[in-house]
């Protein structure tokens, strides 16, 4: 975890401009410390508007070139300002932050991504030893245009086993990624009585999706790691702004998404906590 100015190597729109997706490559020491599932907290401008940093997941890290690759979608003021930063300029980042995913060194790993929630999962695809771990990605999104813009080509090239779901059926299965997940878990080799002990799952996406994924995985007895998002101020556990609720030994507790997470045990998380 460091506070550091990193050099912008690339900050470029990717895919269809309508999707508002950008790839940002940063060069500096942070890449040396980064683990899959962590994120960086970026200062997108120098004035007080916006005032806060913006959290963005690490999608890939290259230790030799000391490069972090991030993908972001333009959402509001902060991400719009981020697009204005040009190569060779320096940006202040705080990171790498958070705990990151725990990666298996053998067995099978199922990744379930929703929309741009796939970006942190990219970091797993990169880091996990694919000779030893059998990885499969299930990815749901709005439509083909989004999937292609957000990195489908790269996936194809990588040789990763994947399945897609889109809302309009323009590519892959028409429907929810959770349907793919159910089908997947019912495939013979993934049945409970088959060697399910070797199967792990990790997911990132909208809250509603992850809640459903957690229910399905629990039902199937598959250990799940979920990467959560919450509005953040400090990013280091000092402000208590970004909490989620977990049940530990039957007792409700708060955890800080920035520090204790963003990756949590899917079993533990209390979705839609009312208090």
């Amino acid at each position: 975890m460091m506070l550091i100015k990193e050099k912008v190597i690339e900050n470029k729109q990717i895919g269809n401009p309508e999707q508002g997706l950008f790839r940002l490559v940063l060069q500096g020491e942070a890449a040396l410390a980064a683990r899959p599932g962590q994120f960086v907290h970026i200062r997108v401008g120098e004035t007080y508007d916006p005032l806060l940093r913006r959290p963005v997941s690490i999608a890939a890290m290259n230790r030799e070139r000391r490069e972090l690759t991030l993908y972001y979608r333009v959402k509001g003021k902060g991400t719009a300002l981020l697009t204005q930063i040009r190569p060779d300029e320096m940006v202040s980042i705080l990171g790498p932050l958070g705990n990151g995913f725990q990666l298996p060194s053998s067995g099978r790993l199922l990744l379930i991504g929703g929309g741009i929630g796939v970006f942190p999962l990219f970091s797993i695809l990169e880091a996990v030893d694919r000779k030893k771990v059998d990885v499969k990605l299930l990815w749901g999104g709005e439509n083909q245009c989004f999937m292609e813009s957000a990195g489908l080509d790269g996936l194809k090239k990588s040789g990763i086993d994947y399945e897609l779901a889109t809302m309009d059926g323009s590519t892959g299965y028409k429907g929810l990624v959770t349907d793919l997940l159910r089908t997947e878990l019912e495939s013979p080799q993934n049945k409970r009585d088959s060697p399910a002990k070797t199967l792990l799952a990790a997911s990132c996406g909208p809250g509603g999706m992850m809640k459903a994924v957690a229910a399905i995985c629990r039902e199937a007895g598959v250990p799940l790691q979920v990467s959560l998002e919450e509005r953040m101020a400090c990013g280091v556990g000092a402000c208590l702004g970004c909490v989620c609720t977990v049940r530990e030994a039957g007792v409700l507790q708060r955890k800080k998404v920035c520090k204790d997470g963003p990756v949590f045990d899917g079993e533990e998380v209390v979705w839609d906590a009312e208090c």
Partner: protein
Amino acid sequence: MPNVDLQVELAGITLKNPVMTASGTYGFGEEYAPFYDPALLGAITVKGITPLPRLGNPVPRLAETPAGILNSVGLENPGLEVFLQEYLPRLKNLDTAVIVNISGFSLEDYMMMASAFQKGCGIAALEVNISCPNIKHGGMAFGTDPRSAEEVIAAVRKNTGLPLIAKLSPNVTSIADMAKAVESGGADAVSLINTLLGMSIDIHAQKPLLANKVGGLSGPAVRPVAVRMVYQVFEAVKIPIIGMGGIMTWQDAVEFMLAGASAVSIGTANFTDPLAPLDVIKGLEEYAESRKCASIREIIGAAH
């Protein structure tokens, strides 16, 4: 080597420099330790503690606003017991003055918190957050009525020998009256300002953005209000002032000290720039030097 004496006296404690961190923005002293040694600070103030553990409010707890943030953490904290057992021992190891911020929802709450902290327990002072609703008085905050404020401070005063800092809420008609009330209640210093009550509405969901509906506004947006209040309180009371509210740079800190603050607290700025407190210390030193002040104390209240 600069020749400026940065030491300030506050409520009977001596701070190595006038720069502290504000309650709720600096966790329990450990979160920013990876970036610099907290011993460089004049003091740190820990997150507000209540008698019992609190889960705080549901999320979302944060909303960004122009040059500010709204928060509704809702006093999430581990409670007095866990604080004393787990956090205090570690805080004592930091080579800086530790101020514990206490909150309650009744007079009894405050008295019991106060009696748990005495001289020699390893902390420098108690900061009493009186912005909380008094449950016995229909939820009206202690800090919005001079009599309640005086009463709660007097009660705390009776129960602890530690220096006492009253943290004032800005959501009042007359901040000077509030400051006078806590002064006569026995406070040794005042901290101001706490957050301004605000709200942000999600225009898509058509409901308040924060789960708690209202939240506290902090950050540079509120600075002009905070500076005005420090200026007014300086003219109203004799006890020293800890100024805060949107301090991002050393220039802002100088504003507060000229307005009358003997020390300043850095809050929201930590989130944007974890090193802000150090930059403020350095800037204060250079400012004093450039004005040929032997001590930073010379600028306190100089704008009056």
